[in-house]
């Protein structure tokens, strides 16, 4: 690549600020139609206990297996004649009542792995259980359709595997100002001022310089663009609330990013689960509710789909410490305005047919969810991103 072309591409973002005013005016007119679809991915890290989140409140097996930690029938917010929401998910149930939520039960993969690390790898790379991929599925999306690190943003300070492609990666930031300052030290500027063709053409050295340039221009673009919208909504005062607030600011400032990834920690409830999990669900649902309001107010909810998953569910039977151990298939949430199948997408987990470990068996492969989102929502070729063709579901 010629140096000039390269620079053009990598500084494209910042040069957007110099487009003539009439072009901007045009953009504004058709803004609503021009908006691209966005996906927000939330991982409930640690393995959320799906059975105490969406509760099969008429199932005897559920109560028998969890004498100490089953959620009492009278506290559940009933949704169907079999399933109900945890009472702290009231804000989510509220969205559900408006037709903004689709719950897919029993999502997982064959030969489930019960290690946090490995199962997170599997979910993030979209691999088989016996396959080790070194790029994430979002990373491969960036590689194919984004070309810029800011195509996908992780709300954190370092990048997870899900965001990594082979030659280009997403970018992580919790705070665009911090990111901008870190890529704008006088020394880095000096280093970049002297970059030449020769640098960029060298194999690994070129890759380093190219990454630096991209980091700098992405940081600048994210910072300067997101400055234009500051959320006035009051998010819960906790780190997850801040992550979602920043995400809303990114989306509502029309940042050209397509995927956001947020990890919410704390779900590895091996002991004294009841109290811990109900707080977590509260934190999750409260922040989600404000987030959706924020997007709606700015007319961007209709272009946003929120996917919530966990690396695995938890065992049906409680353990001796008033908690649950690592399990297998789990429910996932999809939140958005354009859901085709609102409410519950499929049947509740079959507790009569557990696997050898006593865990819920999967009936839906998580990659069919990805494939559906890629194909129908982001409208890209899912097969080339997932390295394989998966059947599509009908939720969107």
């Amino acid at each position, binding site marked *: 690549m010629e140096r000039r072309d390269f620079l053009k591409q990598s500084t494209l973002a910042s040069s957007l600020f110099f487009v003539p005013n009439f072009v901007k005016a045009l953009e504004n007119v058709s803004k609503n139609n021009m908006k691209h679809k966005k996906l927000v991915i939330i991982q409930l*890290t*640690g393995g959320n206990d799906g059975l105490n989140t969406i509760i099969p409140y008429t199932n005897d097996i559920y109560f028998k297996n969890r004498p100490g930690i089953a959620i009492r029938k009278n506290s559940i917010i009933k949704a169907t004649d079999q399933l109900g929401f945890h009472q702290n998910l009231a804000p989510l149930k509220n969205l559900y009542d408006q037709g903004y939520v689709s719950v897919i039960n029993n999502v997982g993969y064959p030969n489930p792995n019960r290690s*946090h*690390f*490995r199962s*997170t*790898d599997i979910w993030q790379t979209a691999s088989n259980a*016996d396959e*080790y991929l*070194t790029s994430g599925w979002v990373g491969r999306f960036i590689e194919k359709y984004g070309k810029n*690190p800011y195509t996908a943003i992780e709300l954190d*300070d*370092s*990048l*997870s*595997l899900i965001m*990594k492609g*082979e*030659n280009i*990666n*997403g*970018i*992580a*930031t*919790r705070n665009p100002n*911090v990111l901008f300052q*870190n*890529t704008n030290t006088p*020394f*880095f500027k*000096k*280093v970049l001022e*002297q970059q*030449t063709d*020769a*640098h960029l053409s*060298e*194999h*690994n*050295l070129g*890759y*380093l*310089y190219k*990454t*630096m340039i*991209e*980091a700098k221009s992405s*940081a600048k673009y994210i910072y300067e663009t997101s400055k234009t919208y500051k959320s006035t909504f009051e998010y819960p005062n*906790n*780190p*997850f609330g801040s992550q979602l607030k920043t995400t809303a600011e990114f989306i509502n400032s029309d940042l050209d990013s397509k995927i956001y990834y947020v*990890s919410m*920690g*704390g779900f*590895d409830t091996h002991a004294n689960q009841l109290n*811990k999990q109900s*707080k*977590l669900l509260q*934190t999750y649902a409260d922040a989600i509710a404000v987030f959706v309001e924020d997007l709606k107010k700015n007319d961007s909810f209709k272009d946003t789909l929120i996917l919530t998953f966990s*690396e695995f569910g938890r065992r049906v039977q409680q353990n001796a410490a008033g908690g649950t151990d690592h399990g297998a298939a789990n429910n996932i949430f999809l939140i958005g305005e354009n859901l085709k199948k609102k409410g519950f997408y499929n049947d509740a987990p079959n507790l009569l047919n557990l696997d050898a470990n006593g865990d819920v068996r999967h009936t839906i492969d998580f990659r069919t969810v990805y494939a559906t989102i890629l194909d129908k929502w982001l409208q890209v070729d899912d097969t080339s991103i997932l390295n394989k063709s998966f059947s599509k579901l009908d939720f969107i």
Partner: protein
Amino acid sequence: MKHKHIQHLYCRASFGADINDLIQFKSKSKSKVISQLFKDSQDFKPLELDLAEFSDIKFKSYKELRDKYTIAEIQKLRQKQQQKIRDLNYAWLERLTEPNFLLREKMTLFWANVFVCRDNDIYFIQQYNNTLREHALGDFKAFVKAIAKEPSMSKYLNNRQNVKKKPNENFARELMELFTLGVGNYTEQDIKESARAFTGWSYKRNGAFNLRKPQHDYGLKTFFGKTGNFDGDDIIAIILEQKQCAKFICTKVYKYFINSKIDAKRVEEITDIFFKDYNISNLMRYIFSSKWFYDDKNIGVKIKSPVELLIGIQKVVPVNFNNKRQLNYLQKMMGQILLYPNNVAGWKGGKSWIDSNSLMFRMKLAALILNNAMINLEEKGEFEDAFERYYKNIKKRNRFIKTTKNWSEFDKKYKNCTALELTDVLIVSKLDKDTESFIKNLQVKSNRNFCIQLMSIPEYQLC
């Protein structure tokens, strides 16, 4: 030996040469320098923590423990035992900065990413780590057999659940896929048959190998066209008869020690050498002695791993981390925590170390460690963390890496160096005219300061 070649050899066989090495080896022949390198690594010094406080928890039965401790105390001891693995991590990093056993330690680091393993039992993982160290330059055949008998490996790849009645194929599969042959070089039937040969392989509480005879399948197995009452050792011997095994390992060696861009002809050349006797020392000696190892295209083109970067800096300016926990932070932010690989496939290395975030961090590393630079980025929480703990660091807006720098050691070696000499020691990557003039224009206030600046340019990321 040429200055540039000494530096290249030491970058790959260790973590870089210092000015004394360069002066000392200048008048020596290449073969002498290489012989010295191997001689210095002849012996093997295990890495051992004092684990006395955990001997009860490790060796006593639960009943015996209960006589002595409350349940809470037992839990606490167990947790502490697991946390001790971090201490082993720090001790290992410290070992890497020491001037002894250079090649053996670098090889140990390499093998840890071939025979990838992870365990939360400090006794077992320490033993495992020392098995890597012991065999790092030895006979590869004995090496694989030893690895297969390690408790940590047995736990990690479920071989202890591998019993005659219900074979577990995990170890057999990864042994071939990730440790010796590579995917596609065996059949599913080979996996099934070899898994049977490893049935009943287990370990004793003290870490010794234990064959549980009733669980072992003594029947006939057919593996790679051979039939016999094979056990695990026989299977490993048959795997090593495949030239593909030598090629698989040599490809990894080539990528790690020579160039991430594979040269098929050279890989074939070293495969022939390795396949002769599977002697690791012979292989490495052959490589380091080859003329082509010192070709320009192989010098300064490898992206340093986070550990190579971290240790390389400390080799120039010795540093003591006052808060060892911060070593964990640094490794985590750069994506490589020793003893905590993400999965059995290990770290991919090369370009995969680099993304926008990690590169900015890596380029700031020298200033963080040596210049009290401030950093406002936080590590991710752990899977097991509760919510508050998961995010606990976020509020601490700015942090410093608290270190004690031994600048006097640096001054002793480099005080009287010219800027050009210091550049030559620290930067092995090609410098083009622009970078050279950039470096020339840096204000050299002092060699200490200049050293940190050099460590902050992209070229320093390469070795």
